[in-house]
């Protein structure tokens, strides 16, 4: 894939990061090419969110060098769109979807200047791209989890971000909503060649769109193409529990918990033989 001369989306060179005196992870050296769709995986507390905070300039590395979209990380970088974990938890009745998306565009602006027609059109466009135009006038608290996630993504893309950082966007969503959000990410990536990094617990729903993965293993981040990451041995080591990888005849890839009840194992073996 051509990168069109764009700088890498994210470069880490020998990066270590500490929090409260404790090293979260170290020896992070990898490059995320522009236009990649990257799953960020690893067990709880491995430092997946920490990686985002480094890229956003909210946290400084204790050593090493970081570059985001060709420049050192800095807070307030408008080229990055960010959807934090549990995004909607703090939001309630007090805000409409449209106003929330507008904040992504003008929320940092001091003074009373009203939102311009061009800015309103930009907000409409972002809402349309995520399929949230229908409920744009409603309050966040009135929406389902999937709808809220769409609005959050609209807020992240409203300023034409080149890099999207999504922290657990599929958490607490049912299967259909998960798939819709994944399809939306695929669309966003295809339409504007946005680089997307997604923190996820479960790789399966994301596998159709992922090109790469960053996995946090034994206190170090590693980066590889998704096909190299989805291996039984690696995933089993990563999660500390048996994980199987299945490739169907149609070429679909998915992972599964490999521990099985001995009784069911016999049934499964019979079915597989049939």
């Amino acid at each position, binding site marked *: 894939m051509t990168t069109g001369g764009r700088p890498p989306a994210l470069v880490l060179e020998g990066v270590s990061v500490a929090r409260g005196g404790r090293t979260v992870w170290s020896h992070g050296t990898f490059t995320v090419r522009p236009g990649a769709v990257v799953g960020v995986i690893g067990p709880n507390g491995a430092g997946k969110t920490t990686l985002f905070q480094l890229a956003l300039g909210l946290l400084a590395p204790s050593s090493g060098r970081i570059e985001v979209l060709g420049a050192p990380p800095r807070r307030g*970088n408008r080229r990055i769109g*960010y959807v934090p974990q549990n995004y909607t938890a703090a939001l309630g*009745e*007090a*805000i409409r979807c449209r106003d929330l998306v507008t904040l*992504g565009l003008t*929320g940092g*602006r001091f003074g009373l200047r009203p939102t311009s027609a061009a800015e309103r059109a930009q907000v409409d466009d972002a809402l349309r791209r995520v399929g949230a135009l229908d409920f744009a006038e409603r309050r966040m608290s009135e929406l*389902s989890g999937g709808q809220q996630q769409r609005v959050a993504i609209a807020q992240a893309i409203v300023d034409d971000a080149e890099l999207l950082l999504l922290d657990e966007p599929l958490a607490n969503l049912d299967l259909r909503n998960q798939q819709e959000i994944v399809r939306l990410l695929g669309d966003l990536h295809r339409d504007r060649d946005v680089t997307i990094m997604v923190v996820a617990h479960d790789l399966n729903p994301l596998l159709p769109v992922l090109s790469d993965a960053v996995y946090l293993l034994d206190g170090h981040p590693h980066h590889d193409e998704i096909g190299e990451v989805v291996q039984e041995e690696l995933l089993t080591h990563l999660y500390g529990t048996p994980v199987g990888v299945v490739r169907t005849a149609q070429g679909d890839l998915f992972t599964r918990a490999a521990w099985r009840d001995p009784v069911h194992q016999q049934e499964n073996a019979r079915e597989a033989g049939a």
Partner: protein
Amino acid sequence: MIAALAGVEFQSNWLQVLQSPFLRNALVGGSLVAVAAGLLGYFVITRQNAFAAHALAHIGFPGATGAILVGVPVTLGLAVFCVGGGLLIGVFGRRVADREMATGTILALATALGVLFASLASANASTTTSVLFGNLLAVSDDQLVVFGAFTAAVVLALAVLARPLMFASVDPAVAEARGVPVRALGVAFVVLLALTITMAVQVVGTLLLFALVVTPAATALRLTARPVRVAAIAVGLALASVWGGLVLSTMVNLPPSFFIVTLAVLAWLVVLGVSGRRGRVATAAVPADRHHPH
């Protein structure tokens, strides 16, 4: 009870009383407070600061009695304690999870100090009562000047800060990533809130302040979530409560605090009833999660 209520008597000369200088001061002072309180209420709610707002009013109590003790204006004592208390809550309650505990603890300490100061200053019961329940009819010309300055400060500051403050209030994590100075805005907000509470305490008192700072905005938020409309409706409701309360209190010659608070709460109850019914209908009419093609 009947005998006590017999003391409530319609004042046939209420229109004349309404035109007297002390009532003009009350009207102007109350209006200034209503504007500041109505505007800040929206942020108090979105920042989930309602308990802190309530506590700040009580933290003003030792400020008022302490001011009497050392012989400085009550407004000064109130302002110093409200701003100081707000900053302390900000320091100890950085995380939302800690805030309730920090607020409650500082609140208890302040109330204890208030009792101590009141006893040391041998402040008479009426002084304490006017701090606890407000005394709008005693607003002096000097106080009006201070009220005017405070309200102007709140309005001007909000004109500059409104948008980033809203971002930082509803969506702090993204706002911070976006470079919005979330922490500094929090401090600025507490100072504005403390100034408003300093005024509002003198209108409705520490015990009833909630009804002027939080209730109008809460009522407005039931009607709409458009920020400008919420602010306009909240200010309108606060003004109507103050004006209506003053007129009613003049008519029957009873303290205005009761009527101001009662009107604000009545408006809230009515809107709650109406929007509650409408809300259920609206929720039922719209499917929870339709498929949205994109």
